[in-house]
């Protein structure tokens, strides 16, 4: 209800990466309501639970709203409020001590999902001279970006507004979580229009149940399945011959590779009946236009790069690239690029050479990423050189990175840890300095700047909470104090003006506009080709070839599976998949929000009833899930929507209600079970195998 003396301000949500337009109601300086903006093309007035619940997050009594310094031993939970000046000076003085002794590479800068400040973070890191930036990018989004960049020059995105007649949803629960550019609303509309639906998922989701064809594959075998579909499309002549001839590179060698994946072999690998694969391949190839909606699941495995590449190849050979309703390249508004803002060129070549793991994972290096394990190793062993300080923004690696015990140990031991966040998470509790971060309701920004859907939606500061700062401002002010003055701005809004300059716009001019948008044009390749070395879609990648990797996509067996590790499977007989999404959480966020936690109070592990019965597990029981790395507890949710040989556990769990500084980080944390052994990484991007493990399960005797 709109009351009198209520001001309604248009902005853009950042409760996840969905980027929904919102109308924020403010009364007497306080936010009273958040609702969807019906005029925003991103969400057309609809919302999700997370964005709406920011009302409870912004005013949460446990929020960190002042800078804090450690007042006891590391991790003891004793904090002292300090001023921003003291916090910044402490950080700056520490860095000024470290740099002459160990070099700037001894300082690691990190972010989690990025609460939309990656370009400020990279600018700061590059100007500081450290090549060591840890993000989730090695196994989330950036890995998709990197793989598509080398294959077709840009990331192809589903064109829902172009009315696809078939959507193939691959490892995504898009109706519960964003996929950066898209979310539930877009999917609802194309389903209402009658689009055919193919879902590839080891678990029954709503979409899988609704699909025309659901391929319930063995976890981690997606690349083999996609190669099998390519095999059908080629052998049955269902590909777009003209496109293939004119616009692809390496067709013959690609065909030879694909021939190695006949359906009988693919059926053995994937558990999916050959006929189903054939039908799905036909439906996708013969329904025009068709798009592939991919999720992050396929990236968090050993097959990351090739999985992204083979799906791009499917889009290409069926003629669905950059056509209305296919997978398209949305041109961004004509603003300065993120990489230009990030000043990657300011990082001296000799510093770039020092990037941890850089020479090993060449695609990761190309997109300026470090695999986090390399950082933990450097902290714990001093090799190849010591890491003395870690500065994390909106990141909770104790919960969200593989091999949590190692992460916890490394972050407990690093000389100096700075964490910027909303709450004292288990990671923040290990810090020396905690910085109070502003939420999206407390800052100005160019919402959606990093995305590939062609929009920028102004995000506007509505309220000030305590002394919280936007992370952008933290980088700006730290940068100035570290001798980077010429590169930084009086205010972060001046930074936005710099980004907007090529478009001839300023923040003041756009802040009340609904959005700015790039001019869309389909089939751009007809004029300009694709932005790859051969100007074609590189089915055979000349870049991977130059780097010494296999230039053609292939399936590598999951490193920990009954196939690859039959001995181990005797003790750990179930395939464990991780990271199934909840609609009310975003990774490790929001467990402290009453409206959301009420909906999802406990971590859940999905088990087939037959499997549960074998182990005397009943619905709702606390269950131990054990891998060779450790064991955790989650509550059993029995479902026939999963193969009896597979169990699916949730990620991101810690317990803010546990008031000791550990906040129960090791109790239900899936990353106690995951491994970060580099032998199991994707060879090009260094993606960690988070998704597919072996485990055993048994009832937990006591309730935690």
């Amino acid at each position, binding site marked *: 209800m709109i009351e009198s003396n209520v001001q309604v301000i248009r902005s853009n949500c950042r409760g996840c990466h969905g980027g929904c337009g919102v109308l924020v109601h403010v009364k007497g300086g306080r936010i009273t309501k958040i609702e969807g903006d019906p005029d925003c093309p991103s969400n057309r007035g609809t919302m999700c639970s997370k964005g709406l619940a920011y009302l409870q997050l912004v005013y949460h009594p446990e929020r960190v709203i002042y800078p804090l310094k450690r007042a006891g031993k590391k991790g003891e939970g004793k904090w002292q409020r300090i001023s921003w000046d003291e916090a910044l000076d402490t950080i700056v003085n520490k860095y000024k001590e470290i740099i002459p002794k160990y070099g700037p590479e001894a300082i690691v800068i990190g972010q989690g999902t990025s609460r939309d400040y990656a370009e400020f973070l990279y600018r700061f890191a590059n100007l500081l001279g450290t090549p060591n930036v840890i993000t989730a990018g090695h196994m989330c989004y950036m890995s998709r970006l990197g793989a598509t960049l080398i294959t077709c020059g840009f990331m192809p995105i589903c064109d829902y507004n172009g009315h696809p007649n078939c959507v193939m949803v691959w490892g995504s629960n898009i109706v519960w979580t964003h996929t950066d550019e898209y979310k539930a609303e877009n999917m609802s509309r194309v389903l209402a229009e009658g689009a055919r639906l193919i879902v590839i998922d080891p678990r029954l989701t709503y979409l899988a149940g*609704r699909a025309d064809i659901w391929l319930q594959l063995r976890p981690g075998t997606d690349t083999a399945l996609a190669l099998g579909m390519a095999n059908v499309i080629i052998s049955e002549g269902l590909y777009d011959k003209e496109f293939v001839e004119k616009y692809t590179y390496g067709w013959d060698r690609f065909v030879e590779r694909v021939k190695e994946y006949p359906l009988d072999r693919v059926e053995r690998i994937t558990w999916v009946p050959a006929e189903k694969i054939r039908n799905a391949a036909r439906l996708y190839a013969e329904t025009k236009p068709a798009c592939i909606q991919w999720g992050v699941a396929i990236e968090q495995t050993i097959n990351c790069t090739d999985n992204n590449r083979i799906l791009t190849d499917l889009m290409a050979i069926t003629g669905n690239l950059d056509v209305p309703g296919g997978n398209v390249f949305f041109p961004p508004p004509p603003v300065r690029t993120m990489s230009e803002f990030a000043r990657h060129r300011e990082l001296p070549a000799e510093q770039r050479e020092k990037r941890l793991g850089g020479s090993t994972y060449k695609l990761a290096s190309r997109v300026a990423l470090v695999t986090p394990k390399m950082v933990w190793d450097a902290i714990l062993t001093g090799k190849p050189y010591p890491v003395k300080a870690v500065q994390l923004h909106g990141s909770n690696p104790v919960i969200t990175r593989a091999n949590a015990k190692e992460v916890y140990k490394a972050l407990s031991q690093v000389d100096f840890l700075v964490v910027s966040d909303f709450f004292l998470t288990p990671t923040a509790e290990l810090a020396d300095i905690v910085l109070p971060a502003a939420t999206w309701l407390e800052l100005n920004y160019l919402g959606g700047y990093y995305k590939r859907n062609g929009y920028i939606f102004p995000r506007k500061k509505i309220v000030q909470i305590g002394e919280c700062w936007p992370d952008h401002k933290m980088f700006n002010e730290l940068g100035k104090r570290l001798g980077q003055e010429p590169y930084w701005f009086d205010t972060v809004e001046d930074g936005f003006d710099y980004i907007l300059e090529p478009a001839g716009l300023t923040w003041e001019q756009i802040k009340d506009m609904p959005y700015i948008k790039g001019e869309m044009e389909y089939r751009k390749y007809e004029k300009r080709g694709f932005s790859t070395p051969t100007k074609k879609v590189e089915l055979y990648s000349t870049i991977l070839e130059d780097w010494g990797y296999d230039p053609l996509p292939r399936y590598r067996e999951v490193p920990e599976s009954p196939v690859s590790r039959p001995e181990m499977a005797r003790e750990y007989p179930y395939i464990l998949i991780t990271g199934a999404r909840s609609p009310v959480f975003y990774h490790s966020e929001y467990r402290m929000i009453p409206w959301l936690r009420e909906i999802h109070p406990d971590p859940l592990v999905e088990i087939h009833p037959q499997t549960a019965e074998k182990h005397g597990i009943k619905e709702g029981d606390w269950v131990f899930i054990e891998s060779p790395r450790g064991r955790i507890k989650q509550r059993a949710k029995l479902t026939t929507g999963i193969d009896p040989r597979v169990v699916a556990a949730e990620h991101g769990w810690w317990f803010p209600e546990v008031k000791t500084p550990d906040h129960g980080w090791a109790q239900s944390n899936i990353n106690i079970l995951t491994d970060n052994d580099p032998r199991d990484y994707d060879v090009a991007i260094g993606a960690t195998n988070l998704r597919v493990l072996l485990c055993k399960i048994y009832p937990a005797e006591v309730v935690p």
Partner: protein
Amino acid sequence: MTKEYTLIVNAKDCFGCNTCEVACKQEHNLSAGPRLIRVYPDGPRQIEGKLQLRYVVAHCIHCTQPPCQDACRVNAINKREDGIVLINQELCVGCKDCVDACPLGVIYFSEEQGIAQKCDLCIDRIEQGLLPACVSACPGYCIYFGDLNEVVKRIGKLELLVRYKGITE
């Protein structure tokens, strides 16, 4: 002709995102506890020849002949001319008879306030010509609101409408 407002979910299109629950909490300034609209998983089970995972959403349907109204000993529950069934919070004595009487289990007892609570169809919003909060926010476009006849025209004679809104099959 008098209105008979109703709110109904087309379960076929609901994917269980829980957005309606939080939209309702926010609109009515509710704490954790009462869930005036609530999403439950339905399945996995065989539907139309295949295994499906659906959701059912429990909420007040504003019955044509509300059992809660009959059960209330202090006449705190009334059905207005436009069909909205409301609890008068001033009159409610917290006896919970309505909670027991509701066939859909969608009347809640607020421990905080000591009274019964239920969906009021966002009466303040609809009086301003807006949709109820849950309807506006739903990304599945599966919550229907309006006059009964018009809702039936849009989604047909859903079972709950037949059972509680006097629609003949």
